């Protein structure tokens, strides 16, 4: 599963590089606008989580309704080990990732023997249980009062404190995450997963160990979430259980559905659209409904979720290349291989219904 550089540089480099350059250049343009930078940083956290979830949903065909639990495990592990044991944030992040992977392993072994809606249920139950522990295990988590004083992360002796610095940290992680996801998808595991998607029985008879691959994807998606959680904890330096409620898991799910689970870019697109729409709603709705709180968001995203699933079940990541294709025919021709390999193979969420 190591990074196969040849495959990454194969064919589709230009599109990816373009995205990378845009992302890394953005703060140079907006460096004075802290609101915009912090919004972009939030998109970065969500991109990491939803890229992991995209792998699980789009390629392994499984849904997880408990991803916020892994996000929280990463955050609380970072918080606890850095403040109580003085561990370096980087080491704490690794501990969090390992812990999340181990928990995913323990939950995944029995859960992946179940059919898909039972897995959804099992992860949902798991999420509620973990949330309860975040809330009740006060000696470790600080309970509902939250966890204060998480130290910031530092790199090469520089403490990363400003939004400008943190932007680069989180987006380097996000891009590595996307690159890694691409690598998985185009590797042996990705092909095995696609065969599972096509027909579990056929894949099984060809000797593909279905459970093993699904379990691996679940663990990888847990690591993505935990790393994002760790980064988040070191960014805000204060966390509380409400951040990791079931609703957060569902927001992650919404991002994946909006972005489309059939492409590794789906997570980024979904996270960006989700955060931007959310911010836009905060600006627009009060103009029409003066007393509206934050609740209108859930109605909006609920309706959006239903409409997306009915009319655009493959999400934006499949529609965007089509639009690009129409606007930029020359650019597209060079990158045809990328679009084909990414968008034609994996289907949206879960297998076709029999």
């Amino acid at each position: 599963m190591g990074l196969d550089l040849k495959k990454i540089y194969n064919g589709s480099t230009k599109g990816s590089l373009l995205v990378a350059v845009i992302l890394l250049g953005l703060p140079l343009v907006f460096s004075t606008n802290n609101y915009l930078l912090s919004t972009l940083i939030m998109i970065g956290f969500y991109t990491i989580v939803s890229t992991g979830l995209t792998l699980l949903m789009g390629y392994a065909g499984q849904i997880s309704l408990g991803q916020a639990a892994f996000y929280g495990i990463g955050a609380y592990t970072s918080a606890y080990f850095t403040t109580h044991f003085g561990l370096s944030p980087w080491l704490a992040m690794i501990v969090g990732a390992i812990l999340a992977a181990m928990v995913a392993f323990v939950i995944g072994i029995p859960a992946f023997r179940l059919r898909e809606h039972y897995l959804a249920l099992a992860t949902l139950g798991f999420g509620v249980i973990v949330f309860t522990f975040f809330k009740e295990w006060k000696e470790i988590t600080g309970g509902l009062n939250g966890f204060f004083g998480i130290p910031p992360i530092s790199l090469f002796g520089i403490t990363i404190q400003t939004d400008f610095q943190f932007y680069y940290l989180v987006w380097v992680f996000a891009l590595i995450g996307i690159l890694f996801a691409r690598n998985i998808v185009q590797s042996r595991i990705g092909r095995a997963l696609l065969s599972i998607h096509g027909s579990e029985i056929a894949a099984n008879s060809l000797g593909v160990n279905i459970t093993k691959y699904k379990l691996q994807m679940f663990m990888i998606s847990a690591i993505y979430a935990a790393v994002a959680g760790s980064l988040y904890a070191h960014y805000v330096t204060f966390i509380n259980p409400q951040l990791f409620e079931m609703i957060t898991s569902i927001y992650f799910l919404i991002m994946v559905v909006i972005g489309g689970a059939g492409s590794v870019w789906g997570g980024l697109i979904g996270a960006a659209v989700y955060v931007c729409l959310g911010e836009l709603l905060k600006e627009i709705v009060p103009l029409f409904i003066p007393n509206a709180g934050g609740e209108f968001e859930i109605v909006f995203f609920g309706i959006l979720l239903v409409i997306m699933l009915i009319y655009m079940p493959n999400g934006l990541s499949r529609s965007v290349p089509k639009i690009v294709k129409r606007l930029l025919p020359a650019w597209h021709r060079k990158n045809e291989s990328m679009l084909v390999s990414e968008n034609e193979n994996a289907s949206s969420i879960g297998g076709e219904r029999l």
Partner: protein
Amino acid sequence: MDIWNQFVQLFFSGLTVGSIYALVALGFVITYSITGILNLSQGDFAMLGALICISFVNSGFPFVIAILLSVVLVMIIGGLFERSAIHPARYSSTATLIIITIGAAFVFRGIAIFVWGTQPYALRPFTGNDSLQIFGAVIQTQNIWAIGISLVSLAVLYFFFNKTYMGKAVTACVVNPFAARLMGIQPLKMSFGAIVISAGLGALAGIIIAPISGASYDMGVMIGLKAFIAAVIGGLTNAPAAIAGAFIIGILEAFTEGYFSSGYKDAISFGLLLLVLFFMPNGIFAKASGKRV
């Protein structure tokens, strides 16, 4: 004697909550059996039922009429939900359909916020604040109403599914949709019917619990999830087992709350869910069958 009193008290509150879960869990089982969908917005029908009923009562409707009207209204909402969200997506994957019901739950909750706001409401008990002495424990009459109405509704449904033509047609769709279609039964209409009935059951559950624990826009979440656990414990397609599961969950929760800590109440129910899923995925009442796919 105090220990005994507390035990009876907790047992009755467990039975009350269990009967609420039973009504909603039955909705799950009916919907799942006929459509193959886990409707995660099921609990929100209870919330809508309770809040609509409170509005009717507050605007001067007689109690019984208010209850009937709100049940019917929620059934209409359920029907609209089926036509607008489930029917157009009926060929999607199971996972997609589950997520659609999550989206619907969001929409219901959001509508409730727009209409009723986020503050909790109270409904007056059906027959005043009297209480009964049973084995030395003080039991509110509303608890007796809750248990009684649930049991009567469950009996009516049993009669419906086993004795009437319509009910048998529904059962036929569950057993073998293809054969049912050959016999002139339309499974698609049944899907509509299933969700409408489930919505009605949910609404009734919400109205019954409203005088005991109040009603607010987010009350459906936990009712729905607990009923869900009950249905899974029962095996998802077995109605009597789901009802038994609901009472188990209700009583387990009441005792956890009474003897241990209310904070871990949810974790214990969901822990039970995971244990059942992992070790007895066909439900704890399933007989070992030799069937393997």
